[in-house]
């Protein structure tokens, strides 16, 4: 047992992290994407019911207010975009309460970038280029595969991700020894997709392939626009390597009214489920109202990327001080 004061990561991983960050900065410098910083402590936070947040108290007597540790820099970066920043990127810490495991530390490092004028395809291509350049020394070399969610899901499960039929989904789960699936997911299509994708699809993704999975079902649209050609899907993609989820990209929703309605829905759901209450980020909505340029954006988990670069099996091995000895 090593002494608790010592770092969890070896010096080699700390060096690899420094190299990775330098390479990312060089990549964006060459493309004229501006590095920015936004606050970690924020007056409002996202409403996503699946994200639990940390709160802190700001004391400025006689005023006391609650500040949230950001779950992602998305809202602040979009305020910069609305103010005319042009394409921007940021490397920062993000915080998600309750998330700890082999691939999760509640405090982690995000690379998030936005490309003004890019559609989703252009951003997927750039994401692939970035990952290939960061991982170019890996052996065997990586290949790229772009596929739609529906196709990927059907290839592995034989099920249609866009047309929910509980008995089909339940039959598949039963046949694959996932005895808890039907009891947990019931009639919740989105939950079924989360369950089957994480248990069955991610686990069989071939190694050494960068998977870019696009056209996410509309019920999992998050902050992405719905697809203009097919309203059953959204302009969202995710990137995976070795079955590890690395990042989420969107063609960003810029309609303030639609964004506000999605906030309301999630706030209502939080109330109904007894989850901690949040308020809408009005400054963010005001920014959308004033006009967000057409853009695509993505966030990548740097710690997981480092796990892949260094061949580490747990996120703790790439963190100087994970939550257990922070």
């Amino acid at each position, binding site marked *: 047992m090593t002494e608790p004061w010592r770092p969890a990561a070896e010096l080699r991983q700390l060096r690899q992290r420094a190299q990775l960050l330098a390479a990312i900065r060089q990549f964006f410098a060459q493309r004229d994407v501006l590095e920015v910083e936004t606050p970690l402590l924020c007056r409002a936070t996202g409403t996503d019911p699946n994200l639990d947040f940390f709160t802190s108290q700001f004391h400025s007597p006689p005023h006391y207010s609650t500040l949230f540790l950001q779950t992602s820099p998305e809202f602040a970066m979009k305020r910069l975009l609305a103010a005319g920043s042009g394409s921007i990127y940021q490397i920062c810490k993000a915080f998600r309460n*309750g998330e700890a495991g082999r691939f999760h530390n509640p405090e982690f490092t995000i690379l998030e970038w936005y490309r003004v004028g890019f559609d989703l395809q252009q951003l997927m291509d750039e994401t692939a280029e970035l990952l290939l350049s960061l991982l170019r020394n890996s052996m065997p070399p990586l290949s790229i595969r772009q596929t739609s969610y529906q196709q990927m899901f059907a290839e592995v499960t034989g099920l249609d991700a866009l047309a929910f039929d509980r008995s089909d989904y339940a039959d598949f789960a039963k046949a694959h020894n996932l005895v808890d699936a039907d009891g947990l997911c019931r009639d919740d299509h989105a939950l079924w997709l989360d369950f089957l994708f994480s248990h069955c699809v991610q686990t069989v993704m071939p190694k050494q392939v960068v998977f870019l999975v696009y056209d996410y079902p509309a019920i999992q649209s998050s902050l992405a626009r719905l697809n203009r050609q097919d309203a059953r899907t959204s302009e969202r993609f995710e990137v995976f390597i070795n079955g590890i989820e690395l990042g989420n990209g969107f063609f960003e929703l810029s309609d303030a009214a639609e964004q506000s309605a999605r906030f309301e829905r999630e706030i209502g759901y939080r109330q109904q489920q007894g989850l901690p209450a949040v308020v809408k980020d009005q400054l963010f909505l005001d920014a959308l109202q004033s006009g967000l340029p057409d853009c695509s954006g993505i966030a990548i*988990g740097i710690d997981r990327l480092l796990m892949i670069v260094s061949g580490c099996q747990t996120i703790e091995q790439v963190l100087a001080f994970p939550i257990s000895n922070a």
Partner: protein
Amino acid sequence: MATFSTNEFKGGLKIMLDNDPCSIIENEFVKPGKGQAFNRVRIRNLKTGRVIERTFKSGDTVEGADVVDKDMQYLYNDGEFWHFMVPDTFEQYQADKNAVGETIKWLKEQDMCILTLWNDSPLSVTPPNFVELTITETDPGLKGDTSGGGGKPATLESGAVVRVPLFVQIGEMIRVDTRTGEYVSRVKD
């Protein structure tokens, strides 16, 4: 009995599942960035010994199982039950055929075993890693063969059959690794 949240899941935790006591082998937190968090758990059913995989929604709670391991001395078999005793307290437990299971073939009176108790009744019996038992039956060996190559089956006083080197004879005591069922050495008095 206490309840446990999925956040408390870790290897060795004993929980109730489908009315059977189980032990968690491995717990993995699975969470899509924009979706529901799950705990995917490998669990051993302590009654059947079977290992299964189950999934919980993160934050759900399950009932704990009152399962403890105790060192006990094997006393005797009365034809139906196997009797064990806690040396310090002289407290006695009787285990049925199900609980004794495969361990039956290694049991020798006075030997220390580990009894796993569920709600204070024996669930399973784990033999010591090494036992010393006398050979009751084996083919006569070839004189002068000390190589140990080849080997032959030998029946032990407890009923187990193990492969032993050719030079080992009836009446000799041998040391056996119960985890692999393999002969280790002869035991000199």
